[in-house]
């Protein structure tokens, strides 16, 4: 049976824990309020407005699912999603290349510090500048075509940005080149968390470079690679506006337009279709959430298989 002293101590601990919890809640309350105001309210307002014919001013009549029906039936959704999926091809490219470079840098090849800086340089260039740079490089009389003509491949010197079939691969190349540096830095950070003794033990056991890479490094990097994939996919869906604006403007027509760019088109270029823009925003949100959930599930399966 607890003594009076033990009971009193237990009561004081309980009161102390409650005070701790209360302090913790009060501490995070201001940030939570701000986040709700800045994030949750606009999302809720956007979802509401997606069911109206809001023109950005005072007109905002409830029209049900008309915006969604229009968007899915017009053929625009399929085209924009296709463009997004093509641009998503840059994700495996940048991760594979980033992984190779990170592994080599981790091995401290000669000049590895300089290479690490060089690979990160594209990340510090503004996407707008990058877009204009690639646009002029791939223009009809730009350096790329001049080189192609000079080496006898003049038939491939086309107007790269004038057709979706050529503009999208150029954009994939641009995004990959831009993102490799970020992938390298993140993967190197992940590799830094691997205990050096693991590599030492593997070396002592006679494991070569490839064995170490595929049997130690990759399995231990699953969570890092998951993070890289998720962030890259989300960024591809939501962060390419400035690149597309400067490179192609989404054109010609809608050939290089993406879902997030169309939100800008409907709201600010058309000027009156804010309701439709909200509907496209909601669709984009759902797509990104679905893809992220699928990636997390696959990652868990991979971790179990390799863990």
């Amino acid at each position: 049976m607890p003594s009076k002293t033990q009971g009193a101590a237990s009561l004081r601990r309980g009161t102390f824990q409650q005070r701790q919890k209360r302090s913790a809640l009060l501490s995070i309350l201001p940030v939570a309020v701000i986040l709700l105001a800045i994030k949750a309210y606009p999302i809720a307002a956007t979802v509401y407005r997606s069911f109206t014919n809001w023109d950005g001013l005072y007109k905002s009549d409830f029209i049900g699912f008309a915006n969604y029906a229009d968007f899915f039936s017009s053929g625009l959704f399929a085209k924009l999603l296709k463009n997004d999926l093509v641009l998503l091809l840059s994700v495996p490219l940048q991760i594979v290349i980033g992984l190779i470079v990170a592994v080599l840098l981790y091995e401290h090849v000669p000049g590895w510090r300089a290479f690490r800086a060089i690979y990160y340089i594209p990340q510090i260039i503004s996407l707008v500048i990058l877009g204009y740079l690639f646009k002029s490089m791939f223009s009809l009389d730009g350096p790329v075509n001049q080189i192609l003509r000079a080496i006898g491949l003049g038939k491939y010197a086309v107007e790269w940005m004038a057709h979706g079939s050529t503009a999208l691969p150029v954009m994939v190349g641009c995004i990959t080149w831009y993102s490799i540096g970020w992938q390298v830095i993140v993967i190197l950070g992940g590799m830094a968390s691997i205990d050096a003794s693991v590599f030492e033990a593997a070396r002592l056991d006679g494991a070569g470079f490839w064995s170490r890479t595929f049997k130690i490094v990759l399995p231990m990097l699953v969570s890092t690679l998951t993070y890289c994939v998720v962030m890259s996919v989300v960024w591809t869906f939501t962060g390419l506006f400035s690149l597309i604006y400067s490179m192609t403007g989404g054109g010609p027509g809608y050939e290089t337009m993406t879902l997030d760019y169309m939100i800008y088109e409907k709201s600010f270029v058309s000027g009156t279709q804010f309701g439709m823009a909200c509907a496209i925003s909601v669709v984009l949100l759902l797509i990104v959430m679905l893809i992220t959930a699928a990636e997390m599930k696959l990652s868990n399966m991979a971790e179990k298989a390799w863990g």
Partner: protein
Amino acid sequence: MKKAISVLLVFVMLIGMTLALTGCGSTKTTSSAASGSSAATTNAKLTLWINGKDSYISPDEQKLSQDQWYISQAIKRFEDANPGVTIELVVSADGETAHQTFKADAVAGTAPDMANLWTGQYTFQLEDAILDIKDLIPADDKKNITGWDAVTSTNTGAILGYPTSDNQVCFFLYNKTIIKECGLDFEKDPPRTIDAFNKACDAIAAKGYQPIASDDGSFPWFGCYVMNYWWAQQSGVDRIVSNCAGKTKFADDAGLISALTYYRKTMTAGYLNSDAVTSTDSWNKFCQGKVAMTPQVSSVIGDAEKALGADNIGVILPPDFDGAKITNSTIGGPGQDIVISKATKNPDLCIKFLSFLNSKDEVLKFEKVQQKVPTRTDITAADIGVSDTSATAKLFKFSGNMVFWIDNTLTSDVCSEYCSQMPMVLSGQMTPEDFAKDLDGIAAKSAK
């Protein structure tokens, strides 16, 4: 004690943040000047937004301090004539975003008293936030200023602003040296038919020059400046308006199909630069003397004269299709206006200022800084000291017979689709017929 201090600190932070957040969201939507009958107060402050580009502030003026700009001095003259009145000038860096900013400010209740916008649908779509000044405009202004159509709402007939004193005219700007070298004389014998135009372009191409250059990717300039004229002259403007309303079909509009077909042909025939859909340097090439003609508007004349010499540049009207309803004309009209917000507390004072700004005296002062074709009908080329043989003098003559900007006439949804898909037609990735059907789909949805 420590607990009390930490609770107090958290409480103060919460209050502070709540106050900051409530400060972000005032939502005044009621107009305080809807009746338009409030008297001008002795002490009044007005806010005026002016676009920083291609409006009242010229590129040369931007190198000077703000108080030396024409518009600043005009404001000072008005303030001196109206003691107690001050006008705050706010320069919008970008005319395009000015519309969205005006819209957002109108909803937030912080719209300026007056704002410089683009005419036609760009202004009409903001009608709910703009004052109808039909009954406030002085009779003399209605008589002596042209371009009121550009600011009269096609939905309600309300007059939504004063057209700015800049009657933009579209034309082919040409390099006289190149044209002469090709054995042509556009001053004495300008190509007035499509056949004559084709022959001229063939002659220019044969000499190794690019006949026409334009950058039609990000915005279809050639399309809007010239192709739209070919459309309007064959179909008539009423037909275009009717198409947008869904009463007739773009797909059945033979004038549209014909104009688009020829627009595409200018590229396939080699008249238009083959990279028109992606290029960004056609203006540079014209100024470097590599291109014979480029579709342009009045405001570039000064730059062209500086680059190639005033004696070396000329202007011609677009050629006419055989049997067209409208001939010897072009696209043009005031592309910008100044509107009065419904939220203004001083509508009469705003009208007084706009009438002052568009008075003959002020327009003549403005013309000394930027030579533009004015919207006042009582000002001639001689009044502003323009030489009879100059390109600007010719534009004065052209301005007497213009078709108002077709892209400003289209409804906003149709216009947006029209401008997006034109590069597809130009590059041959979409047929004119499919383009017309696409527009019909948009028009049908808008009409619902």
